[in-house]
């Protein structure tokens, strides 16, 4: 070992992620041998929520995160609904799904165009054949694509203006449905808003019908599609991914978790489950959080979130993050669009992962695929809304109860667990998608998903954060403000 040159580098901040992120890597002969992921901000929402009126979780929890605010609302509303033992009415479910889908898809779009692609317009790629085109389209702030994307995104979010008052931070989503009944002509406006977004995607991102993209079922079919649609931004990315071999970097545990997305009539549009070589049923009791490598205190052993404790501790030697280490049956799992589609069994994603695992390229493909999959379903949901029928059921929160809200945000599985006593919140614990993906090591010293993904990556001797590291980190679309709520 002594003949090798080993250096430790501290990298950060990483922007174009939500919130603050620091990564330490140990590099030997240009290869990362170990990585430590640190979330350097603590806010303490668990303590804030303790003792509050349970219904006020609907005000506080969306404000955990400005980019997945609605996801937090939906998880909170479901946790409360579970504690009240009610299910939202059909209109309420449809409206909630529409609002959540609007946020999730807007996030996928923002990630691709504003967070992820600008890295390929960096000067370090100036020798590449694709550079000029990429620079013109995706350069941070000045690229032409952003000028098309921002108005399209803002118009699409008009859907939240109609159904939820505003985005982010709405109070429209309630345990029994939504606060905003709509009239027949508003239903028309919703449909028009969704269809206008479809047109944008079909013209700019895909240069093809959404249904065509959604029906791609193998890596070979994708290859052919890529050659046939060279003017689409999706194909632009695939070409870069081929050239830079993005399917060979960023692999993690290849164990995927999804809580199940978009419920109507007690059925998910994308199934819940765990995938590792094959699909398994998810047992929520197997979820625990460990604080062995966090700057947290009091909790001695891994605990189920109903009983978790989040109290800041000393900035000691064993800890290196404010983030906890969630594990499923003591194992590291990855969450996100790729996990949702693996668990649900989309053929293209299953084929890509069986060929090369989860990696930078495949994570991006899964996100863009979801844009093609979900927009047509949104049109169906909007058509099913019944003006003049109820949008919200009403019931009292019991003085003593508990409930879990387990949903899928853009970035993956999001869970809220609440215990209520004497009509007040006794304990409220949140496990956010990036808590799973960017967790520190656990008591067995098992690294989290990003820490695994960075290991064995060749980064060379570049003292700056190698751009490869940035691709890997951003392929997860991390949200650090959620992670460390």
């Amino acid at each position, binding site marked *: 070992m002594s003949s090798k040159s080993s250096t430790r580098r501290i990298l*950060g*901040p*990483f*922007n174009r992620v*939500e*919130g*603050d992120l*620091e990564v330490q890597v140990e590099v030997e002969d240009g290869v990362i041998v170990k990585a430590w992921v*640190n979330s350097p*901000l*603590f*806010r*303490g929402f668990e*303590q*804030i929520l*303790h003792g509050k009126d349970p219904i*006020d979780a*609907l*005000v*506080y929890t969306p*404000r955990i*995160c*400005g*980019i997945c*605010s609605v996801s937090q609302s939906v998880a909170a509303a479901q946790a409360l609904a579970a504690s009240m033992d009610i299910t939202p009415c059909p209109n309420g479910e449809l409206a909630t799904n529409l609002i959540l889908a609007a946020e999730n898809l807007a996030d996928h779009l923002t990630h691709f165009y*504003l*967070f992820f692609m*600008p*890295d390929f317009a*960096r000067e370090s790629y100036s020798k590449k054949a694709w550079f000029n085109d990429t620079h013109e389209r995706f350069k941070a*702030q*000045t690229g032409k694509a952003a000028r098309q994307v*921002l108005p399209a995104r*803002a*118009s699409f*979010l*008009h859907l*939240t*203006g*109609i159904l939820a*008052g*505003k*985005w*982010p*931070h*709405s*109070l*429209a989503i309630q345990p*029994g449905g*939504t*606060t*905003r009944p709509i009239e027949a002509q508003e239903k028309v406006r919703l449909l028009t808003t969704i269809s206008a977004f479809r047109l944008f995607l079909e013209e700019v991102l895909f240069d093809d019908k959404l249904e065509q993209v959604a029906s791609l079922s193998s890596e070979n079919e994708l290859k052919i599609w890529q050659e046939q649609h060279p003017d689409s931004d999706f194909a632009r990315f695939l070409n870069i991914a081929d050239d830079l071999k993005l399917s060979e970097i960023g692999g993690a545990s290849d164990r995927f978790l999804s809580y199940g997305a978009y419920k109507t009539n007690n059925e998910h549009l994308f199934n819940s489950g765990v995938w590792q070589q094959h699909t398994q049923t998810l047992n929520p009791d197997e979820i625990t959080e460990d604080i062995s490598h966090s700057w947290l205190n009091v909790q001695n052993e891994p605990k189920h979130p109903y009983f978790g404790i989040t109290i800041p501790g000393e*900035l000691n030697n064993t800890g290196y993050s404010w983030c906890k280490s969630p594990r499923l049956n003591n194992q590291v799992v990855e969450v996100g669009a790729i996990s949702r589609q693996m668990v649900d069994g989309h053929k293209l994603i299953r084929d890509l992962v069986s060929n090369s695992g989860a990696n930078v390229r495949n994570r991006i493909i899964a996100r863009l695929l979801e844009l093609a999959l979900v927009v047509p379903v949104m049109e169906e949901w909007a058509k099913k809304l019944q*003006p003049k029928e109820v*949008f*919200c059921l009403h019931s009292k929160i019991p003085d003593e109860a508990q409930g879990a809200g387990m949903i899928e945000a853009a970035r993956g599985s999001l869970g809220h667990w609440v215990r209520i006593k004497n009509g007040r919140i006794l304990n409220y614990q949140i496990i956010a998608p990036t808590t799973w993906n960017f967790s520190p090591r656990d008591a067995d010293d098992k690294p989290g998903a990003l820490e695994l993904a960075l290991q064995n990556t060749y980064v060379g001797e570049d*003292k*700056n*954060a190698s751009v490869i590291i940035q691709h890997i980190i951003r392929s997860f679309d991390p949200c650090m*403000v959620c992670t460390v709520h």
Partner: protein
Amino acid sequence: MKEAFNILWLQSGGCGGCSMSVLNAEQPDFFNMLQLNNINMLWHPSFSEASGEEFLSLIKSIEEGDTRLDALCIEGSLMRGPNGTGHFHILAGSGRPMIDVVEGLTKKAKYTIAVGSCAAFGGITMSGPNPGDACGLQYEGKYAGALLDKNWSSSGELPVINIAGCPTHPNWVTETIAQLAMGDLHSSDLDTYNRPRSYTDHLVHHGCPRNEYYEYKASAEQASDQGCMMENMGCLGTQAHADCNTRLWNGEGSCLRGGYACINCTAAGFEEPGHSFTQTPKIAGIPIGLPTDMPKAWFVALSSLAKAATPKRLKINATSDHIRVPPNQKTEKDGQS
């Protein structure tokens, strides 16, 4: 051409929602707005290219006076804990507490802007036991004096400009920055809490589509009812300083239009109302919080009069989730012209 107006945007103890909201700006969108007003975003956490070392050297260059900083925009609360160390937010890659970095930069910036209620007053992050010992830039809740002294002003001779809101409306932010860039924002344009009067000289109540229900005290009783939300549902629109119902959000929205209460998110201390957000506290059946500028006796008298005169249409619609009784159509038969 005039030199560009340099702004730097940093985030600390918040959710990033004000940045996400500003991306909702329309006609023009946010990037065009910057360009059209000759504003140069030196760095923003969500959409700049520079990362890691590139960013840290920009900060150094501002600190050393090599790069001119016209406006510093801070989003999120300032995290002073634990025990005043600021370790609850260490700026990644630097080892420095964010509060130290921010305080240093305020000395260099011509203007300092707090974007959102967290940076302005402490906001949501200060709720409950305030676990992070969070505060705003120049206010801790309602009290002036926080990270910066209450008498502090920037080299541009303005205190911290508090664009409060949770989140901020995109245009509150874009228009305030543009005014500064034009040299068109003066201390007389700020209210008592140093918020831009362009939006805080209004009340959320202005333009509320439920105004007729308010006039007749025809009140909603539960979520999704159509009536006025002041009496039972915790709505603070008659007291909240903002133009949400005349400016509108995401096309045609606002909290009240979305069917839920205004929680007065532009106000210092909104995060701890002392009661549930969506229930109106009352004494002897009368809401404690009365409309701004309204004498209590008048309110009580007018309310009972209005209640006695409430048309049946409003009474029924107020507790329905859609219009059950439409307004009367005048016909020849009514004998009215």
